[in-house]
């Protein structure tokens, strides 16, 4: 029983950075842009968060720095793609490399220096609740901010006019252009938000979870987040579920190993990815494809005619 409690309590550590990155990528893809730079945004976010927290002693400032760093890198990408009409995939890879590289380059002086990051607030009675106590109440405040973000983004996307206009850009840029929406403008906004959210996810890793900056902290989470977008079928609510699932598997396997159980942990580790492939194949077949119809398309008004 306590095994499960501990397991549950540790899930958000893995799940929430994924969730935040996934939210950012959902926004980007909803505007029609494939953004392979996620790993880079998270990396600079994690690094900036750690450094600023080390320097100022304030975890929230660190988180803010992470968001800003991710946003700037996201802006670089968005400018390349939305204004200069560069190939989305190659630009994304370039920005990823820049992000990963910068974080290692600048962060090299700051590795392995623990700091007082964000801790879970003290909630004695609630934290001791069986099963869900740790999961729900032993998380840093940033965790709740993340969940709040899911709700806010879902509401804006699905229930407001600005969300409608935003989604239109990724569905049918010609129609959006016709309706007076600035396609490059929206894509720039999406790129910056994506960078910001991924940066926030990175900051979560360093400031809220590990309280340290080490090389290669992100460890491929940006790519997993990309897969999660497909799994979540471009909906924020489902992203939360998917992230929790991935996190659960991610946190389960080492624990099982530690218990000395003979489980094929790595084979099980394949499951989330295989599952995502299955979702992708099934989703592509369904009549109402979830993928934004104009995903990956570089739009130029003059090309239409």
């Amino acid at each position, binding site marked *: 029983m306590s095994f499960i409690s501990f397991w549950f309590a540790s899930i958000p550590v893995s799940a929430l950075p994924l969730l935040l990155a996934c939210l950012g990528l959902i926004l980007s893809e909803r505007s029609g842009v494939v953004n392979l730079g996620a790993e880079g945004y998270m990396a600079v976010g994690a690094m900036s968060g750690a450094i600023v927290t080390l320097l100022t002693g304030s975890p929230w400032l660190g988180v803010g720095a992470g968001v800003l760093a991710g946003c700037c890198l996201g802006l670089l990408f968005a400018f390349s793609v939305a204004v200069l009409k560069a190939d989305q995939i190659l630009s994304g890879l370039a920005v990823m490399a820049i992000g990963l590289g910068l974080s290692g380059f600048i962060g090299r002086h700051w590795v392995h220096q623990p700091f007082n990051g964000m801790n879970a607030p003290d909630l004695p009675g609630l934290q001791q609740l069986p099963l869900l106590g740790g999961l729900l109440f032993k998380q840093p405040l940033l965790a709740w901010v993340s969940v709040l973000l899911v709700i806010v983004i879902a509401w804006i996307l699905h229930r407001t*006019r600005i969300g*409608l*206009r935003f*989604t*239109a850009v990724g*569905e*049918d840029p*010609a*129609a*959006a*252009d*016709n*309706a*007076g*929406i600035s396609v490059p403008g929206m894509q720039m906004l999406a790129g910056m938000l994506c960078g910001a959210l991924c940066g926030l996810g990175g900051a979560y890793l360093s400031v809220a979870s590990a309280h340290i900056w080490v090389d290669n902290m992100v460890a491929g989470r940006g790519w997993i987040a990309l897969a999660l977008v497909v799994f979540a079928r471009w909906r924020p609510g489902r992203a939360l579920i998917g992230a929790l699932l991935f996190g659960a598997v991610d946190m389960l396997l080492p624990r099982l190993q530690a218990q000395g159980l003979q489980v094929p942990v790595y084979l099980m580790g394949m499951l989330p990815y295989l599952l995502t492939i299955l979702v992708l194949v099934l989703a592509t077949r369904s009549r*109402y494809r979830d993928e934004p*119809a104009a995903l990956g398309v570089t739009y130029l*008004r*003059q090309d*239409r*005619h």
Partner: protein
Amino acid sequence: MSKANFKTLHLRGLCKRFGECTVLENAGFELHSGEVHALLGENGAGKSTLMNLLTGVYVPDQGEIVLDGQPCSIRKPADAMAHGIGMVHQHYRLVERFSVAENLVLAADRAPELQRLPVAAKALQETAEQLGLALDPYARVADLSVAERQRAEICKVLALGAQILILDEPTAVLTDTESESLLAAIQRMANAGKGVILITHKLREVVAHSDRVTILRQGRAVASNLATESLTQADIAQLMMGDVAVSQRQPSNLQTNGPDLLVATGLSASRNDGSTAISNIGIRLRRGEIVGVAGVGGHGQPQLCEALMGLLPIDSGSIQLDGFQISQCSVSQRRSYGLRYIPADRATNALALDLPVSDNLALTKVASGSKGRFWISRKGLFQDAQNTITEHRIAGASPQGLTRLLSGGNAQKLVLARELDNDCVVAITHSPTRGLDVKSCGAVHTALRELTSRGGAVLLISEDLEEIMTLSDRILVMNTGCITGELPGTASASEIGALMIGGH
């Protein structure tokens, strides 16, 4: 968007050039409130470009747009909307995933009251009722039929406050009943004080449902603001075709004896979206014959070509070439029997522009294996290319040079040199002289005639009536995916035009 009804719209002296190509020259017309003004012209005559200028997709190089006496500057779609100009395109600008009402909310930048879903839905319903059309504002666009989508788009544009409505070939994809319903709605719009610009190919519509007509030909207005009351369809057809001065008809190479070379019967095929492109088409080609297929664009001509070539699967019918049944054959098999294709859009369908000239020339031979089953010699290809360039006088071309740099006429010469090779038996050509200057046209015609003198045959599908009348031994007329009639090659323009009118 409360705006006083507009009174007049004048387009004057509009010019538009793309690089070297002048698409519109000194074009213009007038529109009054309460009027339905038809805009006629062949594909490539400039109708789309003219409307693109009016709706802000392009900016004119010269000329002006004057609304109610005030010149206006329309530089982007939003400006057009601001001036009350709305367009319903042939390919609707509706986001499929959204409902009709959501699409209205999307577009309601300048109409804040329409930015709430229930209000938008109500506005749509009211507009639809006024026009006498049925519309469910909450239906998803993806679920709607073509006719329903069109209604949705029209109502959306009107609900946004459009005073001037441009309709691009609205009845092209509708059934008779749906067309009638739409045309009645258009009349109601005009009665309510709107101005309607109706782009159409259907002469019956022009005569019966429009007040005035403007006819475009090769970027110019050959007839402007003509009242249609006193015109008949024949009059309009005459104006559209112009004085088709048929240049000297060359002697025919037709060998009347002998079996048919290409026989297609009952051909039917559909487009990607499932709509029928061609139905029950029958074509017969004999040795030495040039059969022309006349008709305005968009009536299934590309699909006919693709079906014959094997690029589009046929729903029913059969094709025989030189006695062989080729309906189930692959493209390469059909080519091996001597079938060749010169498509209309050479940049997209006939040439790999980023590759050198020699590659494009050798393309089909390499694919068929006649240049070597496994290994090919680049040097050999270069040599062949140089020979071909010299023989066919393709200017500006060198074997290593990029194909992209060739002019239109020379690029087409390249395509012809490649396709009309010695093994060519039947050539399917689609608008082979589109966008070419007079001299290049002559070269193309000579090449086609040369093929027939060798005993080959040509299927000439073209919107250029003069070309068809000059070259063809027999003329078929195509309309909405069917052959509506056959005439001898000596038929007059009005006889051909009469067959083009038919249909809805």
